[in-house]
């Protein structure tokens, strides 16, 4: 492409060097045909949380939390207060008898925690001068408490009163927290998973360490609940471990090693030692049945019930995958440091290898020829029942790494990125219908043109 633009004088490598597949511009299954660029942040936007059906909050390195209306793209609130980057954000829902009110809890590098009301933009509660900055937050709605994890584990009640805290002795501190049955929580701490139990008596909460699970070889990067009985963890070395949530023993251990599959097929391409990040599990997501793991720049889908890999693609993006999501049993989405969001479909049939995009000319077909060499792992499909992971569309808009995205189903998709922007992707046809509707409403109100 660039060669064409430059008139062949200068060969730009960026397209050629990556054997990543490229879908081209014909994307009939991609329904995001309209976008809105949401500006407001001054630094990398790292977090997005959904507040309700039409609102989401974004937070990032500028210490700002912005609340957006996803339907219109309006910025509803600007929550200012943190002086440094936000390290964790979560929603906190208080259920009364009739109403439920959602607040936001944020943690920042300035060693403070804040509770915000996204309706009014008020900072309801704040705690500053913590001993260390909080890296993760977990709300236990059942107990009406929430837990912050960092170098120490603290338990707070909903009025921001510290219930108890526990110093831990790891260098890295707690990087992830999940809730387990029986008032237990699991915390990922370097290579270990620590199980704590919360005891509630007379409105005071105490926390006790019960077990340490030290089966991972490398730092744990991701920790998720799968369902009531299972949770999963992924490590930097590509280990995916399935745990029993009650007994805390290993149910399955999968070591995802791209190198193995590659040794046979693409040794000539592989130059030097593989970087460890290529098999690092960056992100795990699940829908209760499948686990989707972002492994380096690839994707790996694992079936919990059969304890077998469903499908995988070693090179799904040009660069590390940062966030993934399972939209349904067959549809998934991933975003990456390469600035794109990709939508995938798990297909049963062996691929026709031609996703129907006629009419390429010149260098455009050149980049296309690379596409076929994209999925090299097909040859090592020695596992039976393996299915294809087919690219159905991509969203290109950000000029930096896409950090995270939140799907609002029909209302669209919000992505945030290091380029300080949020992009709201929508179904253009649906939006234009909605606008027409509004137009005729207004017409009626005004009583004619």
């Amino acid at each position, binding site marked *: *492409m*660039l060669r*064409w*633009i*430059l*008139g062949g*004088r*200068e060969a*730009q490598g*960026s*397209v050629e060097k990556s054997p990543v597949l490229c879908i*081209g*511009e*014909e*994307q*009939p299954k*991609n329904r995001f*045909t*309209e*976008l*809105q*660029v*949401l*500006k407001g942040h001054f630094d990398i936007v790292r977090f997005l949380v959904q507040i309700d059906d039409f609102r989401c909050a974004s937070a990032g390195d500028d210490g700002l939390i912005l609340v957006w*209306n996803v339907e*219109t*793209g*309006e*910025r509803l609130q600007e929550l200012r207060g943190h002086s440094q980057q936000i390290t964790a954000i979560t929603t906190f829902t208080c259920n009364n008898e009739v109403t439920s009110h959602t607040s936001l809890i944020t943690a920042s590098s300035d060693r403070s925690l804040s509770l915000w009301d996204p309706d009014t933009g008020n900072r309801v509660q704040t705690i500053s001068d913590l001993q260390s900055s909080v890296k993760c937050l977990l709300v236990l709605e059942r107990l009406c408490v929430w837990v912050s994890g960092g170098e120490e584990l603290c338990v707070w009640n909903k009025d921001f009163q510290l219930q108890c805290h526990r110093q831990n002795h790891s260098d890295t501190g707690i990087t992830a927290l999940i809730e387990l049955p029986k008032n237990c929580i699991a915390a990922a701490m370097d290579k270990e998973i620590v199980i704590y139990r919360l005891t509630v008596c007379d409105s005071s909460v105490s926390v006790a360490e019960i077990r340490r699970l030290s089966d991972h070889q490398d730092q744990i990067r991701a920790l998720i609940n799968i369902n009531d009985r299972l949770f999963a963890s992924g490590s930097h070395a590509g280990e995916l471990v399935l745990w029993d949530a009650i007994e805390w023993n290993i149910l399955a251990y999968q070591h995802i090693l791209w190198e193995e599959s590659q040794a046979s097929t693409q040794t000539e391409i592989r130059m030097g030692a593989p970087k460890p990040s290529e098999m690092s599990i960056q992100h795990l997501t699940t829908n209760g049945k499948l686990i989707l793991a972002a492994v380096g720049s690839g994707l790996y889908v694992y079936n919990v019930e059969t304890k077998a890999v469903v499908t995988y693609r070693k090179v799904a993006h040009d660069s590390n995958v940062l966030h993934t999501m399972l939209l349904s049993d067959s549809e998934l989405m991933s975003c990456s440091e390469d*600035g794109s969001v990709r939508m995938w479909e798990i297909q049963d049939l062996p691929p026709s290898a031609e996703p129907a*995009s*006629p*009419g*390429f*000319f*010149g260098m*455009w077909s050149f980049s296309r020829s690379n596409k076929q060499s994209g999925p090299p792992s097909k040859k090592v499909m020695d596992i039976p029942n393996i299915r294809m992971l087919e690219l159905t*569309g991509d969203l*290109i*808009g*950000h*000029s930096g790494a896409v950090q995270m995205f939140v799907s609002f189903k029909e209302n669209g998709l919000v992505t945030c990125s290091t380029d300080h*922007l949020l*992009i*709201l992707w*929508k179904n*253009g046809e649906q*939006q*234009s*219908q909605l*606008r*027409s*509707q*509004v*137009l*005729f409403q*207004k*017409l009626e109100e005004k009583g004619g*043109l």
Partner: protein
Amino acid sequence: MIGSPDVVAFTKEDEYGQANPDPWAVPEEFSVPLHPLADSNPWAKTSYAKFTKDFILISEFSEQVGPQPLLTIPDDPKVCGTFDLNYFSLRIMSVDYQASFVGHPPGSGYPRLSFVEDSRVVLGDSKEGAFAYVHHLTLYDLEARGFVRPFCMAYVAADERKIMLQFQELSLRFSQASECLKAGNRRAFAKELQRKLQDLEYTHSVLQREEGLQREAGPQCMYSAHAVEKANELANVEKSIYEHRDLLRQISSYHRRPRRDPHAVTCQKCMTECLSECEELLDKYVKLANPFSYCEKEEDGQGQFDDEGGEEEADEEDDEGVKRRPSYTPQLIKAKSAKCFDKRLKTLQELCDETFYDATLELLKETERSFRGDLCYLHTRRLDKALRRKQRVANFLFEEDLGNDDEDEAETVRPFCAVNHAIDSCILLNPPPIVLGPEPLELDALEPPEPLDPTSETSHTQESELGLGESHLESSPSDQTLETQESSEETKGSFSSDKSGVGPSEKQQSLTSMKSEAPDPDSDLTPDPDHNTDLERESSSEEMETTAGDDEGDDGGDQTPVSLLEVVSELKASGEDECGGGNESDLLVPIDTACCMAQEGFLYEASAPETMPCLRQSSHPPPSPTPVVNQEPQALLPLQDDYTVGSPCLESPATGLELPVGHLGDAVSRTSAEDGSDCTMSASTGSDRAASPLGYGGVLTLCHRKKAGQGALRFVRQYPFAMQALWCLLSGRTLVVLGADEGRVRRLVAALALFVPAPGKCGERVQAWLSCPFTLTDLQRWKLIGLQRVASPVGSSMLYSLSRYSRYISILDADQKTLRCPPYRGQLLANVADHRTYIRRGSTYFLHIQSTLCHLAAKAFLFTFTHHLHLPVSATEGPEVVEGRRRCFLQEQLGLGEEDSQILLYLSQLITQQYLQPASGGSAAAPCFSFNYTTSVLYKI
């Protein structure tokens, strides 16, 4: 002349208004009269006119020489060609519409001012091929016969029909101009009356004193012929005072008079200002019950008065003494008034206030501009405007902005005052063609204050008047000095009351001073540092009130003429000191001319001419009116008459769409020459531009659009894939024009900008030249981008963004002549982007485009606002039914294919967005950017 066979007299009071009501309100009027005369060649009518363009002629029926042309607008000899202005003036002025009896009507003791309403007449001269809307008006002049001076303003055109059909608007605009002139005239007239009254009272006092002396001298003198003559003279002066007071009263009552003229447009502000001013004057002169106060005062300071020469002695004696000085020095008025025809009549500028005069000219220039073009053009333009006003919902797509036109429309309706609106700009930016020394006080107000003796200012003003205004006198500063000194001596020697014995040189001198006096009566304000600063402050705070300032200054003078003289001579003495002891000059210079002008009598030459050279030597550059002009030559440019081709467009800081005319071929420059008049026509007045840069940009957009027509035509003829490019633009896909040569890219962008829907008032959706990588936000903002191709690291990042966002853009490579865009197979644009089109001229092509786009916009409007195409008719209908109906409408009823439908959908989307936009314009939500995922192909030439 009125009996001449082809004179078409048409006065407004008839049923013209009903015969031709608001031409764009009636539907049948929407039809353009293509053939005004069925039988004749439409060009035949104007072919034998001796002038090339319509122009405005201002003529005067001079009581001395008869009808004479004063000026034309535009002030360009080329316009009139061989057309005989003198002859035509004779014709139009010979319609003596005003049965102007002035003088002493029976039953009244005093001369009456006639309040004559303007008259509007259409006259024709088929032999000359000229037809004119003629607007007669009268201005007051104290020296004129019957105090009135008839003038007329005529809009001269070769097409009679044009004038007839534009009669109402012409009448409206000329009424405005006329009112403006008359308002200024009343002000000047009141000022003149005031001055005259002062003179008269002063004369009266002098005469009385003489009479008293005679009485003292003895009874034998009482009945001498001389004494009788004096007594008669005194009586005459008294009578004259009463007459003038009455005139002042009459002019002040002008405003209370009911206007019979339905077209009279007056500005309330001017009216009230003028009224209050006049009443103030009136009060003052009514209150002045004892006109003989001069006498007493002077007798205090002075023992004996034999003749006017005595005053000279008085002055010398009073040299040291009083400090105050009025701004106007009364003069003696000679009893006998010679009726002769070599007296100098006031020019139109002098008759009206300078400000008002300039404002009127501006108004007329604007009128001339707005009536350029033939009738068909004007008519079409109006229809166009009227139609577009009705199509507000959709016309933002391809039409240029109407916002300013609306204001124009409103302006013609509401009472308009050129002066108040334009006062700042018209003084600063629009110097009169001949610098006739504006009032020094006003000048001071405009200039930054300088530590200069005001004396020198005054003198310099006089000098400049002499030098520029009356060039035949050829008085360079040195001449003037010599002359003045010499004549001072002479006057000293030969001063006497006997006016008959004035030598030729003195005559020359007095003529000089008179001339210097005449252009601006205010320039004889006796300079006084104290007073002047006062006045300066006052006038700077409120420019319009300079007269009031004068009056205040005069208050002192009215009571104490003696002290006045003293100060003058004191100043003179100081001036002499500075000069190293010059001659004693006479303060009173007799102005005698055999003529009888207002300033006959004594003129205080004052010390001005004498101090001036001294100041010169001390290297104080006297401020003159010209520096004001010279300081900002560029400010004058837009105001100069723009008969040059498209000059306002070229010199403008354009919206990035300029077409360098020089680079294009002959055809282009020819086109621009044709378009030149259009450009200037659409350009509003200079003051408007200064006031509203937005409108400026919008106006220029039209101009550029017209020029871009040629570029677009070239593009279409040159590139076989032009249709695809146009489709991209019309369907909302951003088109990037990539090229290394800025000129070429800019030209292409300017040409293609015609096809960008809703380009914004100043073409905000178009970026003519970009040399940095663009982002998604830029794509959202701009629909047409000119991008610099650079082979450097910067370039590669830019090209990276090109390839990254390639799905959202189409790329037109200007260097390699390729286009990368989705394939277009529709038929809708085949008509516009015909590679083998027979259209050869850019302006024709522009109109062709406009009509096609207009058609599209209409379809889009229909599509957008058809309810059942977007919403279900009944509750049972699903979205698929609506979808199917929509497709059916697009394909079968409008006959559009898939790609053509996209154009309509995009336009419809724009209309929807525009319609839903809150009235305030600002929306909290970010704009949407729609696209679709289709493969692009590469088109080559």
